[in-house]
């Protein structure tokens, strides 16, 4: 079913909307959730929460690209769920991903008053991504939006894992510089 038709079902408050969403995007959303949570049961719950969130959000929201709209929700649900998992249930892979992110964060703890509004941070990340090549944009989004394992990114781009790690490290360092220059809580 076309995305427009699915969105129309949401607007008509037809539960068929959730079934059609699951049919078309279930596997895609599950992959994102599993990339972050690494546990099938948790991923399944995150995806179910995503359907519920979509149901509660559309309408009034009319997603421009349904796939991306849903991927944002499932990513959010998964990271939220991940933060509540006990240490024993956490995944080493996601912990590594989160520790990578720490590299590019200016330390906000020292100057909490300087914390910028979320949208300002997003604007800066978008501007930074806009300055990258298409390939680098894809690598960054794969790792830090979709939480794709390094091995899979390496295979997709025909690079070694080490090369991808190095490229990500360079990007994180550039992003950090940019955020600092923009005065985001150094």
């Amino acid at each position, binding site marked *: 079913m076309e995305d427009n038709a699915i969105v129309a079902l949401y607007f008509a408050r037809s539960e068929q909307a959730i079934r059609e969403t699951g049919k078309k995007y279930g596997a895609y959303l599950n992959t994102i959730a599993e990339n972050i949570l690494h546990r099938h049961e948790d991923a399944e719950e995150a995806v179910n929460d995503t359907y519920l969130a979509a149901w509660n959000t559309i309408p009034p929201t009319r997603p421009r690209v349904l796939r991306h709209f849903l991927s944002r929700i499932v990513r959010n649900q998964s990271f939220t769920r991940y933060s509540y998992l006990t240490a024993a249930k956490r995944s*080493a892979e996601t912990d590594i991903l989160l520790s990578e992110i720490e590299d590019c964060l200016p330390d906000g703890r020292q100057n909490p008053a300087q914390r910028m509004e979320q949208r300002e941070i997003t604007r800066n990340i978008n501007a930074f991504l806009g300055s990258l090549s*298409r390939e680098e944009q894809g690598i960054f989004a794969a790792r830090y939006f979709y939480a794709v394992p390094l091995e899979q990114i390496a295979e997709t781009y025909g690079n070694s894992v080490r*090369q991808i790690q190095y490229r990500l490290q360079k990007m994180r360092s550039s992003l950090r510089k940019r955020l600092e220059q923009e005065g985001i809580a150094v």
Partner: protein
Amino acid sequence: MTISEFNKAMNGIDDRFLSAWEERQKKIAPLPEGKGKYEARPGHRRLWVLVLAACLVIAMALTAYAANFMGIREAMTGTLKQVSPGEAAYITPETAAAESDAGWSCALTESLYTGEKIMLSVTIRAGEDYILIPAYINGSYPVGEIGLSGNETLQEYADRLGKTLLKAEASMDFTDWDVNGQGIFPRSNGTNELTLILSSEHTLRGPETLTGTCTVYVWPLGQEEPTIETLPLSLTAAPEPEGDKQIFHPVVSDSVPGMLFQDGTLSKSLSGYRLQLPFTVTDKGLVDDYLKTYCEELDLWGLLDKSTGNVFYDIPTNDFGQATIQIRNSDSEVVGTVWIVEQIG
């Protein structure tokens, strides 16, 4: 800023950046089996390029050292991957070279195969109209990335001189050696010469000889498809260092939950000594979360290699008779310790 704030901010990134990853996945999906990222050059062009390359192989091989190409030692000096004197003795000059019809040439200059580690230096040269840059950077990076001083970006610098930015990358492949995770380290020598050091390491010794190729990819910034040259490679492992192996016995073999340790060995390696402590997994559920090891007496972090069932330590000396090795989990908490003592006689 916190990780959570960053994660939320990432949720707002433009759709076009999300598409960059999705497009790429779609792009590689329909390729027929056996075809990689890069397309092969048309056959009729390949023939005359091969003839030209063959002539140049001889010419470049003869002049590689005279032309003062950068080698492994020089490129890695001062880095964490610096070659030890023991390893440096087995660095071998290489002579394979090729010239592309796209205005660049490449030459293998040196190789090192210790049995556990491969390092390879390949130098790429381009004409005066080009500025060679490593593949992972682009025109918005500062000129400092290729060792120049100043505040210009690479693109501004290239535009000012009327030159083209040329990206370069290389990889190696062997039939009997898994190169997954190979490293690449770039060193610029001026604007139109770039040396790439490729490296790959395994924890256990590989075959005595290896046959393979080094493939060099070069393309102008902004273009998708690279021009490719493939250089043949044949490596012979450095001999294993001689000397008696010291045996270390775990005092309590099951002191770490989920693991059972056997006798370990400390043997001479090209960079000092290597401690290898084998183990079997008795509880996979527990061991899955174990990540690294630390030895307090030696103040060294070791490798917990679950794929081969060994703990490895590369140690500068062998003047110790016992050691306590901590096993740590992904939160860096100590989950158990194993005390090993040298067996005399």
